[in-house]
């Protein structure tokens, strides 16, 4: 399992390298993009995911000490927290679609500032700040819209792949739950719980890096 995880490290490592390079070249656009993300939703999801790692660790512990009902309870909690994460991610993604922040033909980083009526969920104060940031960034980078699109491509690519990993993880958790309800895991044999646990923690680690890289660029302005 660890060898598989190392290949995953290199997989995500390559993507982060691409991100780092573009962030270096087009920093103003990346800072603007990051400031349009919701820190509340992102921070909440970070807490949710960390908590799910804790419940997963407790599920592994339950299987090691042979507390059979507790395994199922902790697995269910982990699944539930995973679905909370998906729910929040859905809200975030749909906001981006409404705000014309999905890379493609209709991408327009100035959309909410130019059409405040079409973005009722963004407060006037936030729009003011965003407008100021956009103007500053535009002075530094005339191709702001194109480069902000790069940021959003990185955002959707990285969070999308992370979410895909979580979907696979949730599937594995359901499979574990089936096994634990059948009473299959004992202190002598709990390898599946242990291994899926490693996978789930790895996905958590990916998010630990994605959160500051995507949500926390240049927040101090």
């Amino acid at each position, binding site marked *: 399992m*660890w*060898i598989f995880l190392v290949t995953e490290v*290199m997989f995500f490592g390559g993507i982060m390298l691409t991100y*780092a390079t573009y962030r270096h*070249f087009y920093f103003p656009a990346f800072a603007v993009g990051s400031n349009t993300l919701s*820190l509340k939703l992102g921070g909440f999801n970070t807490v949710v995911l960390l908590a799910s790692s804790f419940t997963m*660790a407790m599920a592994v512990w339950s299987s*090691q000490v042979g507390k059979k009902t507790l395994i199922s309870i902790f697995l269910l909690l982990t699944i539930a927290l995973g679905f909370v994460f998906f729910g929040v991610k859905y809200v975030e993604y749909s906001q981006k679609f409404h705000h014309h922040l999905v890379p493609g033909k209709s991408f327009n980083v100035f959309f909410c500032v130019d059409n405040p009526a079409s973005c009722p969920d963004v407060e006037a104060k936030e729009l003011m700040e965003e407008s100021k940031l956009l103007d500053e960034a535009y002075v530094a980078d005339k191709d702001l819209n194109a480069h902000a699109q790069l940021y959003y491509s990185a955002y959707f690519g990285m969070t999308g792949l992370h979410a895909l990993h979580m979907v696979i993880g949730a599937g594995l958790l359901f499979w574990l739950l089936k096994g634990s309800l059948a009473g299959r895991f004992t202190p002598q044999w709990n390898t599946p719980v242990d291994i899926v646990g490693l996978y789930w923690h790895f996905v958590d680690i990916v998010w630990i890096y994605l*959160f*500051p890289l995507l949500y926390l660029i240049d927040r101090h302005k």
Partner: protein
Amino acid sequence: MSEQEHSEHIVSPGIYLAIILTLLFLTGTTISAAFVNLGRFNIVVALVIATLKATLVVLFFMHAKYSPTRTKLIILAGIFWLALLLGMTLSDYITRVDYRGVRFPISQVSQQLPAQRG
């Protein structure tokens, strides 16, 4: 169950609880740190905190601290290759200069006047 193949060290729930609380505290720290202007060191602080969190997860949640040397070696090899990948490539990109000898990114050194975006 030989000691070699199945040396399972059971980590107590108390340790897990301490780790999750530390992780949540560090999340708060990284968010607060992002609102302080540290110039180019903002990203350094963010990555140091993230690495600290990842290390805690690997050592305790993933039991690496109690794993056989073989497993530890695989983890270290992974980190080593990742460091090579990131270090070698970025040491190229972040030191590039253009034909005038001006460092990239150009946008930071250009002296453009504020203009209305069209």
